[in-house]
């Protein structure tokens, strides 16, 4: 029987032995793709899950999905990276980070469903994938080690194509006959990863980043500079006619039309106009006043990136486009973004690190005349020279000017580790000089208000960076970004969402973000649904967070977005798999439970699951009515002003969540009953052998 959507092969790379081999994807297709397969592979291949992130036995996976390389809008291009990360503090959890562009598509065209990276090389290497020809090459031949990510990629392009002419057909795989006009898709580390900066990322093309998790340093520890892939093959589809029709009809009905641009209330989602993710374009002072185009990942129906006539800030979005937004001039903002991506530095960590150092300098805690000598001052903050020195300090672990620096070494390990080394961690967390709410990741959205974000992050492994629910605030009718009043009522929003949230669609209070409900079993259900949905549909099938879910859509007559119908329709057309949206939620539950089992084997206990202190003690300041809540029997939008996450009530919430998951409430450990109900007896056995199985 033909299998569609999968190539059938996973590429296994052993950097210690410098060997390549294959694993059959069929062993893992029951996990769907992307994250599901990555977690299952990690579970099988990493026998001792207590190892550190730099242990050669740490397995890093890069997975596609059956929808990669297809015409599925806002989905074709994502890749999912997993492994034990370097960024989190103090626990290096098994974690994930996705990125867009064209890497996953190209990997599928080359005939691979994913890449599994094991071991560590003794010398810097890069992996050269040309269809089924895979070679581990020394970096020295092309002098790659030491190059920034852009220079590394362009060097590899020319080498693989065998020509500097990027406007010609090339035959990258000798003897195969396959041809391409395309540049190889490359994922690379920059100097930050090479120097084991825990604030380092993986970069693809100009600005597609596997940003969270510190995978740049993990690759650096393996002496892996880059993975390049060029594919000249094809991806068969179960129902080509159905796929074309689904794509055309779906996009026509639900996506932005330049001829009929309905003002939408939710930015950065399925119905967005092009360019919506470029933050420096949204902020008037930094708007890039030159000719430009929208720039999209492969197969996407509406771009979230842009490319510019001056070539600055290409494809930069979100925090990497805005981390230095207070620069002296807009061109410095764009150049800073480019430098960040070239060095391979995490933008959010860079931003919060910068704030932390400034706070310490202002209070005379570090700097000249103190015990902690700091090589950087903020005298020239706003200039390009400042940000260049700062980013190089983070990347190279020196003074940012090429000279050794203990301060640079400390801060390159992340602000929390630096603070711990300086003996200031607890006090700076308590004072919120260090605004790191969950697992050592910098603040993104507030656990006291954006409940599913905070809970999902602390019950998981990292800042979730999943905007599914956050974006609903734009429907509140508030003046966020100057948008006009919402077109629909809160009750309509609730009705629409609830209908898409089986198996919890019979409990409307799952959407109530009020203080009275924030610790309830209802909220536990909502957080659970969100974990299941993102684990499967977004991280395993790889629907992009910038475009999905399509909950509320202004182009739809009744505002009902296409989520729930669209995703299974594309899956059906590509694979012939008749999986329903709810089936995907159920598989997401299984994947979530597998991840939790891995964290448990790494050493997690419920006592560790807590936000940083200020979120339990300091009240939230924000009167904007951004959150759904049921007040006096009627749905409305409410504010979270004045809240904290009350410790005792949070413990009660954890108990409710664990009960819902079927985990042991005393420890948070998974139970055999739950795992076997999810067909994971082997996982239960391993937990039991390690003394980590709940009662």
């Amino acid at each position, binding site marked *: 029987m033909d299998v569609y959507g999968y190539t059938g092969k996973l590429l296994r790379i052993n950097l210690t032995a410098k060997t390549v081999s294959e694993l059959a994807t069929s062993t893992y297709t029951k996990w769907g793709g992307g994250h599901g397969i990555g977690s299952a592979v990690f579970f099988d291949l990493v026998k001792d899950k207590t190892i550190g992130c730099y242990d050669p036995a740490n397995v890093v996976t890069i997975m596609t999905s059956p929808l990669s*390389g*297809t*015409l599925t809008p806002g989905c*074709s291009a994502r890749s999912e990276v997993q492994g034990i990360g370097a960024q989190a503090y103090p626990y290096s959890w098994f974690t994930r980070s996705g990125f867009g562009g*064209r890497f996953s598509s190209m990997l599928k*065209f080359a005939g691979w469903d994913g890449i599994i990276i094991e071991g560590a090389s003794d010398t810097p290497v890069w992996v050269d994938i040309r269809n089924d020809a895979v070679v581990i090459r020394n970096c020295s031949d092309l002098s790659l080690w030491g190059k920034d990510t852009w220079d590394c990629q362009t060097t590899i392009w020319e080498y693989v194509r065998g020509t500097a002419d*990027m406007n*010609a*057909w090339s035959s990258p795989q000798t003897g*195969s006959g*396959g*041809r*391409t*006009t*395309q*540049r190889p898709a490359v994922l690379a580390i920059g100097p930050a990863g090479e120097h084991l900066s825990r604030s380092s990322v993986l970069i693809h*093309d100009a*600005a597609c980043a596997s940003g969270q998790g510190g995978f740049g340093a993990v690759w650096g520890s393996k002496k892996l500079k880059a993975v390049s892939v060029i594919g*000249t*093959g*094809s*991806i*068969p*589809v179960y129902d*080509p006619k159905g*796929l*074309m*029709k689904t*794509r*055309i009809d779906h*996009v026509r009905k639900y996506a932005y039309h*330049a001829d009929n*641009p309905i003002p939408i209330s939710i930015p950065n989602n399925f119905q967005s*106009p*092009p*360019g*919506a993710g*470029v933050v420096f*374009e949204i902020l008037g002072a930094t*708007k890039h006043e*030159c*000719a*430009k*185009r*929208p*720039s*999209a990942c492969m*197969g*996407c*129906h*509406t*771009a979230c990136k*842009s*490319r*510019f*006539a*001056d*070539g600055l800030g*290409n*494809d930069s979005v979100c925090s990497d486009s805005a981390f230095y937004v207070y620069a002296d001039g807009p061109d410095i903002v764009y150049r800073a973004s480019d430098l960040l991506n070239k060095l391979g530095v995490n933008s959010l960590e860079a931003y919060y690190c910068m704030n932390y150092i400034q706070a310490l300098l202002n209070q005379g805690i570090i700097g000249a005349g103190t015990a902690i000598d700091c090589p950087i001052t903020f005298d020239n903050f706003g200039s390009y020279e400042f940000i260049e020195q700062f980013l190089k300090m983070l990347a190279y672990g020196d003074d940012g000017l090429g000279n050794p620096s203990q301060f640079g070494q400390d801060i390159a390990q992340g602000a929390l580790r630096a603070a711990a080394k300086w003996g200031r961690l607890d006090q700076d967390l308590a004072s919120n000089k260090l605004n790191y709410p969950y697992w050592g990741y910098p603040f993104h959205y507030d656990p006291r208000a954006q409940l599913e974000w905070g809970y999902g992050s602390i019950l998981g492994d990292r800042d979730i960076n999943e905007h599914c629910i956050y974006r609903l605030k734009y429907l509140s009718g508030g003046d966020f970004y100057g948008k006009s009043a919402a077109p629909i009522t809160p009750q309509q929003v609730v009705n629409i969402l609830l209908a898409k949230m089986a198996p919890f669609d019979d409990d409307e209070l799952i959407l109530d973000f009020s203080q009275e409900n924030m610790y309830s079993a209802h909220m536990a259900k909502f957080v659970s649904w969100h974990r299941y949905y993102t684990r499967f549909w977004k991280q395993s099938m790889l629907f992009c967070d910038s475009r999905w879910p399509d909950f509320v859509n202004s182009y739809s007559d009744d505002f009902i977005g296409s989520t729930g119908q669209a995703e299974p329709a594309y899956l059906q057309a590509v694979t012939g798999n008749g999986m329903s949206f709810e089936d995907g939620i159920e598989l997401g539950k299984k994947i979530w439970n597998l991840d939790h089992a891995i964290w448990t084997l790494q050493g997690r206990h419920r006592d560790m699951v807590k936000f940083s202190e200020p979120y339990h003690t300091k009240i939230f300041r924000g009167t904007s009515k951004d959150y759904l809540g049921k007040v006096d029997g009627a749905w409305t939008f409410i504010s979270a002003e004045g809240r904290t996450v009350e410790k005792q009530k949070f413990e009660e919430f954890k108990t409710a969540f664990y009960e819902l998951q079927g985990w042991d409430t005393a420890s948070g450990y998974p139970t055999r009953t739950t795992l076997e109900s999810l067909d994971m007896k082997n996982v239960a056995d391993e937990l039991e052998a390690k003394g980590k199985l709940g009662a």
Partner: protein
Amino acid sequence: MKKVTEKTSSSLAAVTRRDFIKFSGLAIAGIYTIGCTPGLGLKKASWGFILVDTNKCQGCQSCMLACSLVHEGALSLSSARIQVLSNPYGSFPDDITISQCRQCTKPACMKACPTGALARDPKHQNVATIDPAKCIGCQKCINACSWAPARSIWNNEAGKSQKCDMCASASNWDETGGPDGKKACLEICPMGAISFSNVIPAQDDPDSYNVDLDSSTPTAANHARTGYSEAGSMLEHQERKRS
């Protein structure tokens, strides 16, 4: 600003009846496929031309995926008959080029084909197409193409050449393709960056198939509102390149 309806360049080669017979293999004058629009002096070809506005392109390559899907039933960049080349480090508008078959009035590829596999299809408005049954995989059509990258495509899996036929042979689609039908690339493009015209573009001008598809429609103002500005039109860019 080169518009779709603009009068073509005087460098357009005149197509004589002898040329027509040579290229089509047909001796019946009634099937003559290049004519003039009375009063406008515009020369048209029945098979038509895919025109693109690279300024509007977002580089998603959906056109490439759609092309391969409707023709081969599988998604592939290598067998797509329209090629989008993108440089993420380039400066707009030179960061993207679109290489579609130019449907030349005097196709060098057709002249080079030793078996007659590459010929005009009378059932589809005489669009130049490759009959896979006759193609022997010699690749002379690819080597003969006057444009880089070559517009005839090597399908390695089939071991034959193929080229854009305006979706005349697109069997993996519920629509009717061909010059008078729908074209998958045009239908799928989310930016409206692909168009179709029967007016013959200047044949020796490398930029004549890049046209401004935006400013004559309301979409220009809409795009400007989204932050996607038309500052620097295609014509201005071409003028700068020539100067």
